[in-house]
């Protein structure tokens, strides 16, 4: 048995679309040893997941996959994955080549119990009695640290939490002891704390079995400690490939360098974030590095005046009287500051946002604003406090042009004389870095980052005093994220805005926030200045939460 598990040479993937052929992956080469952990890093559209799905021939019929060779050495045979018959491949799937997908909620069948879904994969490859299969699945669930494996076996995916669902997916992938596991963004849908535990579980399980692992991720920080080698992709091209340590510490490729530089973090919080397009330029086939001068953000004077004071806020959801989502919160938001709110899923951060924007009513407590805004009616209130949502795709009405979307807000709030609205919309669009002519376009004509800019423009239209950003940059690629973060910082300075910035990304929160509020199970664990929480956190919980965020 050779040491080599997978050898790919010249892998190309193209998609036939209505507007012609589109090359998603170009000339990808890689070699994976048995038990090796390879990280493939890239932004969306880089071809990282497409290339790996192509290996298992899991792409749709409109794809065209070619390669000089895809040599795959399973335990007992060596085959070319692209040339072997469908039957041979089916025998390899799960038993030797297994997958974990990004979003376990959609990757697991909603109508079949978790246990059965794993059992099915075992039964497809091994001849075992029902009882034996059940026993094996329950053992596997126990290994994945799922509580009460027996009851989890009979649970449906929607009855479990996100982290538990992903553990089921990993159990499913490992159930036939595969030689290679391909994990496609396995932790992206999870919150920070879970992300770490799940990725550790995944890598440990693979190491224990000496299963090869290909870890696909957009986040180079996440994979750097867990992989042996690293491959960086950009727009379908392989940028850099080598031992992870070398790639991360001494990147050679301009794109890799840019990718690392544009990550927001605590260290570069006083600077404008560089973006990928400022750092490199495409010249023919090759990428060239551009000189980039780091721009320091001008210092801000924070007034001590508070915009919003939250007193003894309590809330429980109907039907769950015993479980309080918010347990008596007390804090204030100051004029012109960014208050970051972090916490695991279920900690109450989004509930808090909904209460502040009055989508939910608190059972107890008060939200007091300067100038007595809390007494305002819903509509007037909305002109003071605005929200930018997470998903720029679903938060814009696809049937309205950008201009119509923003004008609607102006109409509702009766802002700006009728004749001047067009001009005002153009100003807003330019402020967020779009063109005045974009007002005529529909949301689908824009990229994710541009759409988020539109959402920001819409929020700014009423000239609010405070904006709630609920995971507003979480759905964006690293380089786009940098652009939007820069924009948010610039607008804040120009307009003296206060942000309530909710996120589970600790790097982002440490970059943008002046103060950070740590929530856990509806209670404030800590509320301190960013410097304090990063360098000398007061509580144990924030210590573990922020461990590893600062060392760069």
């Amino acid at each position: 048995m050779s040491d080599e598990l997978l050898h790919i040479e010249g892998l190309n993937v193209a998609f036939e679309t209505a507007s012609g052929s589109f090359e998603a992956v170009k000339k990808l080469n890689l070699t994976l040893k048995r038990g090796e952990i390879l990280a493939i890093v890239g932004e969306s559209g880089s071809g990282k997941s497409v290339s790996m799905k192509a290996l298992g021939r899991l792409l749709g019929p409109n794809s065209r996959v070619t390669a000089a060779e895809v040599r795959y050495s399973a335990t007992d045979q060596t085959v070319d994955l692209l040339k072997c018959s469908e039957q041979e491949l089916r025998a390899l799937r799960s038993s030797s080549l297994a997958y974990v997908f990004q979003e376990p909620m959609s990757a697991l069948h909603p109508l079949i119990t978790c246990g059965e879904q794993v059992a099915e994969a075992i039964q497809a490859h091994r001849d075992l009695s029902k009882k034996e299969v059940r026993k094996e699945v329950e053992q596997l669930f126990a290994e994945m640290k799922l509580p009460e494996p027996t009851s989890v076996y009979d649970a449906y995916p929607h009855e479990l939490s996100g982290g538990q669902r992903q553990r089921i997916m990993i159990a499913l992938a490992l159930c036939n002891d595969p030689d290679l596991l391909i994990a496609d963004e396995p932790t992206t849908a999870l919150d920070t704390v879970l992300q770490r535990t799940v990725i550790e579980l995944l890598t440990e399980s693979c190491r224990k079995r000496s299963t090869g692992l290909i870890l696909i991720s957009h986040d180079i920080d996440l994979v750097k400690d867990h992989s042996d080698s690293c491959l960086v992709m950009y727009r379908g091209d392989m940028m850099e490939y080598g031992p992870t340590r070398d790639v991360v510490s001494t990147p050679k490729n301009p794109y890799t360098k840019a990718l690392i530089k544009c990550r927001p973090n605590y260290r570069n919080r006083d600077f404008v974030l560089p973006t990928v397009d400022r750092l490199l330029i495409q010249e023919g086939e090759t990428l060239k590095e551009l000189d980039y001068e780091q721009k320091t953000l001008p210092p801000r004077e924070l007034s001590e005046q508070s915009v919003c004071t939250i007193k003894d806020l309590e809330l429980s959801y109907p039907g769950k009287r015993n479980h309080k989502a918010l347990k008596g919160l007390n804090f204030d938001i100051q004029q012109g500051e960014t208050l970051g709110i972090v916490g695991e899923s279920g900690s109450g951060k989004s509930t808090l946002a909904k209460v502040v924007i009055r989508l939910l009513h608190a059972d107890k407590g008060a939200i007091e604003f300067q100038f007595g805004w809390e007494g305002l009616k819903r509509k007037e209130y909305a002109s003071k406090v605005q929200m930018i949502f997470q998903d720029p795709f679903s938060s814009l009405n696809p049937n309205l042009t950008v201009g119509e979307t923003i004008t609607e807000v102006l109409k509702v709030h009766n802002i700006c004389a009728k004749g001047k609205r067009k001009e005002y919309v153009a100003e807003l669009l330019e402020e967020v870095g779009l063109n005045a002519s974009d007002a005529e376009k529909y949301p689908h004509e824009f990229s994710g980052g541009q759409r988020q800019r539109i959402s920001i423009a819409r929020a700014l239209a009423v000239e609010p005093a405070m904006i709630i950003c609920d995971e507003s940059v979480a759905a964006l690629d690293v380089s786009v994220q940098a652009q939007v973060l820069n924009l948010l910082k610039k607008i804040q300075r120009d307009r003296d805005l206060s942000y309530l910035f909710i996120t589970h990304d600790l790097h982002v929160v440490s970059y943008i926030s002046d103060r950070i509020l740590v929530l856990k199970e509806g209670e404030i664990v800590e509320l301190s200045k960013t410097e304090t929480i990063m360098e000398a956190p007061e509580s144990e919980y924030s210590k573990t939460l922020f461990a590893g965020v600062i060392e760069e």
Partner: protein
Amino acid sequence: MGKLLRKVAYNVFILFSVATVVFFLFSFSFPSPEDILATDRTDQKTIDAIRTELKLDQPLHIQYFSFLHDLSPVSWYSEERTQETNALVLLGGSQKNLVLKFPYLRRSFQSGQPTSTLLFRAFKTTMFLALIAMVLASIAGIFFGIIMALKRGTLIDQFLLGLSTLGISVPSFFSAILLSWLFGYVLSDLTGLDVVGSLYDVDPETGKYIRWRNAILPAIALGVRPLSIISQLTRNSMLDSMKQEYITTARSKGLSEFRIVVFHALRSALNPVITSISGWFASLLAGAFFVEYIFSWKGIGSLSIQALETSDLPVIMGSVLFIATVFIVVNALVDYIYTLLDPRVKGL
């Protein structure tokens, strides 16, 4: 349990509303019952008797309450009436008993038989036809739907899609006439089928028996539209579920294509199909007026048409109430089926 009670109360309220609307609609818009009932030979005494029975000599609201009293399963009955209707006495009184009884739908003006007897007799034959039609339509529809989804874009898909669109657009009275003429008349030597015919036939020696083959043509005529709609729904729903990520997961598990299609894709594609099947089933149970009429099938449809022609008020009102009940019962059943099929739908 609370949910179940709420649901029952809700449905009772719907029935009550239907009864109210039906009562007032027919009280105002139809010729008065005495005009219909009384012929030249009817003497004043008979007319008076009818008036008393229907309480026509009383003001409208008394008539209405009497109508509801007849409908309600719980009523105050005199001893005599209790005996007569075989009602179950819940609480005996000195003059009147509180009884539990089957809703009284009054008697047909035409035949003098109780409306409920007529309705049940007709319902049995309609039920028979509707069941055959829906079983055929569901099985064939789901089958063709899967084929179309799997062969998407091919000639087979195009052909079946065109055919089903035709099936949806052809009105049932037209396809009924066409089928009846073609297979019952032109090709009747080959098929051995008749142009018209009812479920029961009478043999001089053995008496009444069921003639299965008389159900074939009307069942097909009834089933064509549901079949076409079910197959298109299945197709779209399957195409949607085949796109889901859990299908990729199923494929990555190394399952056979058959298992993926049937156990994974079809399973989650079935919900909208079931909604459609139940809707069609309820409306077929309510009586397929045209088809029953054309094949002179003696079901709810023909009964209602006949009643309308002769202004047989109790039968008309009875049919409307009966059909409303059928819809409510079928919908309740389907809600229950959903909870069995989809664990995400909370049970009662």
